[in-house]
Each structure stands twice: as structure tokens, then as C-alpha cells.
């Protein structure tokens, strides 16, 4: 998928979070890395149409994304979004969470939606969890159900905002395995992550965001072995210090 970010700026109540973000590439799996508070999540929300930028343009596969509320609705329906935490409706069961967008955003009838949801649950080994409410599920299960919900709408792009940062290593592996499998199946993904191993192995492109802007980007092999900027070198030294 081709993506172009053209001078994207975002500020909240006078506080600048993103300044002049420019980036252009063609990717299958893109990892966004960088220190906390650098604006990674904000950038992902702009790409997903959840936040309008203060200024600047976004192009996906050559088509400019309009940030008028009406057209955003259509844009959001082509994208799957997985949140860091609390990404399920708390008053609905796991199955209902997956079915709701199918019925109410995609006008499937209830039987079709239930059928598709059940297929996904079976595929991801979640059959036992279908009738549980979010508070009855482990963090890892919640994230996998979020991914299942995002997959159910057959998105052209899947966005994930630190999907494993609230999970212990075992559950993290569980979620990343599922994701790796989907990427291998040709799904286009952008993931904001602190899992450097995953960014390196499962994503062929990497963007490094620091201080509200894209500092460095490129092929992941190159980014991790020959970082060009001081900022990225310092960041990698810090996060990889305790890696085996």
C-alpha cells in the first residue's frame, strides 16, 4: 500500500503534538517506533480517520483522504483499528463486539454476521470466549478479539496502536503470532509498537518518530543495523540495551 503524509501538523488546545510530518513509502507491514509521547498514537489516529489533522494531507494508494465528517465515515469503514487497551464495547459479549460493526456499519443481516464472527473465532481459537463480556476476558484475549473484529470487516488496512504494551510476554507472543500470521497472508498493517523484535522481523518498513516528527525511515533491516541519525542511534541503544 502506498502512503503519503504531506506536512501533517496536529495540535491540541495550542499544544503541538505533530509538526510537519512528511513521509512517503510503499509498504506491506509498517512499524512506527519511537519514545513515548512522541506523537505515534496521534499519527496513527490521523491515518485511521479518528482525528483530523490541524493541517496537511494524507494519501492512501494515491487517493487523498478527506477529513469532512461525512467522508471520514466511509474511510473508517475501510480500516481496522486495534486499540492499546479497552478496545471492546464493555456492554457487549465478545461475539456481539465482532458482529456490531458488520450489522450496523456494513448492513449484513444478523445470521450472516454471526456466521462470519464464529468463523473468525474458530480460526483464532477463541470459540470458548464468544459469550464472555470484556471484563471476563484476559488482556491477550481482548486484544485477539479486537483483531478478529477488525478482520471481520475485511479491511484494506489494519492499524494497531501498541496492541501488546499492556500484556505480559506470554500473552504478547500470543497476539504477535496471530498478527504475524495475518501479515503473512497479505494483510497490510501499520503498527505502533515497542516490540523491537517484532518491528525488525515481521515488518519490512520502519518509521522512527521523535518529538512530533518523522526523524528517520526506511527498510527495517537497515534501520536496525545502520541507523543514520543520532536520535535513532540513542533510542535503539536505550531500548535494545537489555535485549539478548
Amino acid at each position, binding site marked *: 500500500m502506498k502512503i503519503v503524509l504531506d506536512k501533517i501538523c496536529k495540535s491540541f488546545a495550542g499544544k503541538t503534538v505533530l509538526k510537519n510530518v512528511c513521509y512517503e513509502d510503499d509498504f506491506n507491514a509498517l512499524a512506527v517506533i519511537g519514545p513515548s509521547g512522541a506523537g505515534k498514537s496521534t499519527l496513527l489516529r490521523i491515518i485511521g480517520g479518528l482525528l483530523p489533522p490541524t493541517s496537511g494531507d494524507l494519501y492512501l494508494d494515491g487517493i487523498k483522504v478527506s477529513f469532512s465528517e461525512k467522508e471520514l465515515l466511509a474511510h*473508517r469503514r475501510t*480500516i481496522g483499528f486495534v*486499540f492499546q487497551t479497552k478496545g471492546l464495547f464493555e456492554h457487549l459479549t465478545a461475539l456481539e463486539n465482532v458482529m456490531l460493526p458488520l450489522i450496523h*456499519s456494513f448492513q449484513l443481516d444478523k445470521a450472516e454476521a454471526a456466521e462470519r464472527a464464529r468463523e473468525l473465532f474458530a480460526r483464532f481459537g477463541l470459540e470458548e470466549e464468544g459469550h464472555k463480556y470484556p*471484563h471476563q476476558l484476559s488482556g491477550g484475549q481482548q486484544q485477539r478479539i479486537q483483531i478478529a473484529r477488525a478482520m471481520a470487516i475485511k479491511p484494506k488496512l489494519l492499524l494497531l496502536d501498541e496492541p501488546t504494551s499492556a500484556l505480559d510476554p506470554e500473552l504478547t507472543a500470543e497476539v504477535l503470532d496471530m498478527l504475524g500470521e495475518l501479515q503473512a497472508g497479505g494483510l497490510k498493517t501499520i503498527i505502533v509498537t515497542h516490540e523491537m523484535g517484532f518491528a525488525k522481523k515481521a515488518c519490512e518498513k520502519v518509521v522512527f518518530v521523535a518529538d512530533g516528527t518523522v526523524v528517520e525511515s526506511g527498510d527495517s533491516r537497515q534501520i536496525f543495523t545502520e541507523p543514520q541519525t543520532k536520535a535513532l542511534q540513542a533510542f535503539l541503544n536505550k531500548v535494545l540495551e537489555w535485549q539478548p
Partner: protein
Amino acid sequence: MKKSPALFYKSISVVLVTVILVGFVWISLVRINHRLDFSTLWAYKYRLWQGFKMTLIMAFASLLVSLLLGSVAAMAQKSRFLVLSYLAKIYIQIIRGTPLLVQIFFFFYIIGTAWGVDNRYLAGVLILSLFEGAYIAEIIRGGLESIDESQFELAKAVGLTPAKTFRLVTFPLLMARILPALTGQFASIIKDSSLLSVIAIPELTQITQEISADNYRLFENYFFLGLLYFVMTFAVSLITRHLERMYKHENSAG
């Protein structure tokens, strides 16, 4: 998990509490040399029944209107139009900060007379609704604020329209949070409706006052009046408990 106490221990405790409470009231009556005699009340059973129904009607009507008023005030408070927002905030502040009795006199004799509202039943419902609406507005505001922002962002992300977000997300989440408080407010409405007697609406309290002027059995009459109110509010609290359990079943994480 707390172990529930043994049946024997439970029944002993119930008996003990009953003996203490009844004994206390009985000794108090003995000390003032009064013998309770409810037999005269029987003659007024038809009027009491009418009053009972009137209280329920006023309370139900006020519940509906105050829900509407409370919802509007809760929304208006968050409005970007400052006039609307200030109006709602001042309404809630003043109504919650003054006694219902004062409001009844003010709205009935000044506002009501000035604008020609001379149907006292309608006036009663409106005044009581105005009063309870301010409390309900606060319940709704608190409920809305307790919903995690993430739920709304999620609704956006899955492509729901604003109307569907309200119907499928905001409304059910809000109801789950505020239903217990709302039913509790209904119990308050039932009790507060007794003050409508000051504008001569023939509800339970007014009827009891009239009966007292007739049979001079004040203690018995008001004792019985209290009992009737308790029957109503106890029924409401049973419903509340049921609703709370339903809510817990779905969302114990709160």
C-alpha cells in the same frame, strides 16, 4: 467470598431487631399515655384509596416529565451555546439549593397565577418535575462522565454514525450506570409529592389532613400515612435491587 450466616443466627437477629424497634415505640406511647386505635380509619378507606392512587399518578407523571427535563438539562449543560449551558447550570443549582416547599409556593402562586396555569394537577406535576429534574440532570451528567472516552472512540473506529453511536453505545452504557440511581430518585418523588398537599391536591397527605380534621386521630392517621408511603417506596427499592443485580451481571468491572 463472604460466607452467609446460618439461618438460626439470622432469624434470632430479625426477632431481636423487631422486638427492640416495636418495644421502643410501644414504651414511647405508654409514656405519653396514648392507646393507638386505628379502627376509625376504616370509615375513610375509599378516600384513602383515592389519595393513594392520586399520589401514584402524580409521582408517575412527574417521573416521566422530570426524566425529560433532566435529560434536556444534562445535555444543555454541555452545550457550546453559553446561554443554554448557563441556564441549565443555574437551574440545577437554584432548584437543588432551595426547599421544595418554597418552590411550590413561588411557582404556583406567582408564576402559575401570572401565566394562567390554574389546573392544580398540571401545576403540581410541573413543579414536582422541575424539582426532581434538577436531581435527575445531575444523575445523568455523572453517568455520562463515568463512561470511558475509549468507548466513543471505538464507536467511531468501527464506523458507527453519531445516531447509531447514541442508540447502540451511549444509551445502553448510560442506562446500566444510572438505572439504580433513577429508581432511587423515583422513591424520592413519591415522598416529595406529599408536599403538594399545600396546594390542595387530594393526594395521600392532603387526604390524611382532611381526615384528621374530622376524626381528631392525628397519631393513627399519620402513622398509617407513613406506612402507605413505605409500602410504595419499599416496592420501588425491591425493583432497584433487581435492576442492580441485572447491571452487575453484565458489567461487574463497573
